[in-house]
């Protein structure tokens, strides 16, 4: 069976790369060091493929057709596009996809009762572009993104996200032994973005999430309702669904928090977490 050789959780925010200069140097340095350490560990794990649990920001999926879960089948992903690159201030580039692998996941999911949508064309925003800028600067590892609706309510429940992640983990373990797969989930932790409370961060909520992740005690996170997350973690906090999905794929694995900082200037409670058996 194929092996899950690495797993990581990170925040994503366009300002992490778009406006590094406005953040406090000690916070920026800590987080950038966390990203660089994730890069080092990920490279050492020599993955053939990154399966990424992420969410769209209305860049791709419109209100006329909004998937709860969507498997990417693109040959390559804009990460970022030239338009997004201007705002994120990182070079535009294409990251290779793995459409055959994605199709196998999709077909297996549908057969098992996970009714994924699928997409052959995705322009990523910060959900892929910013973390991959740090994690795979060489751009050599293809990605299969699994998009979860975290930003256009009503949203799938955290429990369902966990079940989807568990399915993805089981699917990977059913694959040929030669495959080395790394998992990366991006988003969160607390942030209020675009709402009247834009800029608010809740470090208490962030610490609670990180503590649960560190202890592999995620049932309390799975039980969170959308309203509870919105109240304590903001609309951006809904993105912890991606983390919950990843943790569903690697039951019992614990998070090692490499860096955390509530970066007011990036309007995000930012973390980088390595997850291991």
């Amino acid at each position, binding site marked *: 069976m194929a092996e899950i050789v690495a797993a990581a959780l990170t925040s994503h925010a366009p300002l992490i790369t778009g406006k590094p200069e406005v953040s406090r140097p000690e916070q920026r340095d800590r987080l950038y060091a966390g990203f660089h350490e994730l890069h080092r560990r990920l490279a050492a794990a020599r993955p053939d493929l990154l399966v990424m649990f992420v969410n769209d*920001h*209305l*860049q791709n999926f*419109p*209100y*006329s057709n909004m998937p709860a879960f969507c498997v990417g089948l693109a040959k390559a992903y804009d990460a970022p596009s030239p*338009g*997004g690159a*201007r*705002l994120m201030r990182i070079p535009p580039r294409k990251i290779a996809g793995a459409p055959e692998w994605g199709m196998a996941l999709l077909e297996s999911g549908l057969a098992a009762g996970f009714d994924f949508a699928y997409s052959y064309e995705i322009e990523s925003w910060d959900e892929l572009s910013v973390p991959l800028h740090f994690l795979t600067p060489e751009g050599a590892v293809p990605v299969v993104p699994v998009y979860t609706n975290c*930003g*256009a*309510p*009503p949203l799938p429940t955290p429990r369902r996200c966990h079940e989807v992640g568990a399915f993805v983990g089981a699917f990977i373990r059913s694959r040929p032994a030669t495959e080395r797969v790394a998992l990366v989930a991006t988003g969160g932790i607390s942030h209020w*973005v*675009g*709402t*009247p409370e*834009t*800029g608010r961060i809740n470090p208490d909520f962030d610490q609670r999430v990180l503590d649960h992740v560190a202890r592999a005690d995620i049932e309390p996170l799975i039980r969170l309702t959308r309203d509870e997350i919105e109240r304590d973690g903001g*609309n951006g906090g809904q993105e912890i669904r991606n983390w919950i999905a990843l943790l569903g794929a690697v039951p019992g694995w614990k998070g090692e928090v490499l860096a955390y900082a509530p970066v*007011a*200037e990036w*309007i995000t409670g930012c973390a980088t977490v390595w997850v291991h058996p």
Partner: protein
Amino acid sequence: MIATSYALNKILTALARQHLSKDRLTDDDLAGHDLSEAERAALEAGDIAALYHLGANPYLIRRVFRSRFPI
């Protein structure tokens, strides 16, 4: 129950996808869109709080009216 304005989100999605940032929308921007008076007024004023309360998606508000946010 989630309050969402499809009309607001439709016009904001179209602008966000073009990577256009606006301070306020004009009559030209709004042409052909089926908006309530309150929605039209909020878009023309660039009133980000009003847009939120009228059911615009906050990510789209942020993308299109970036200049309206102090941070």
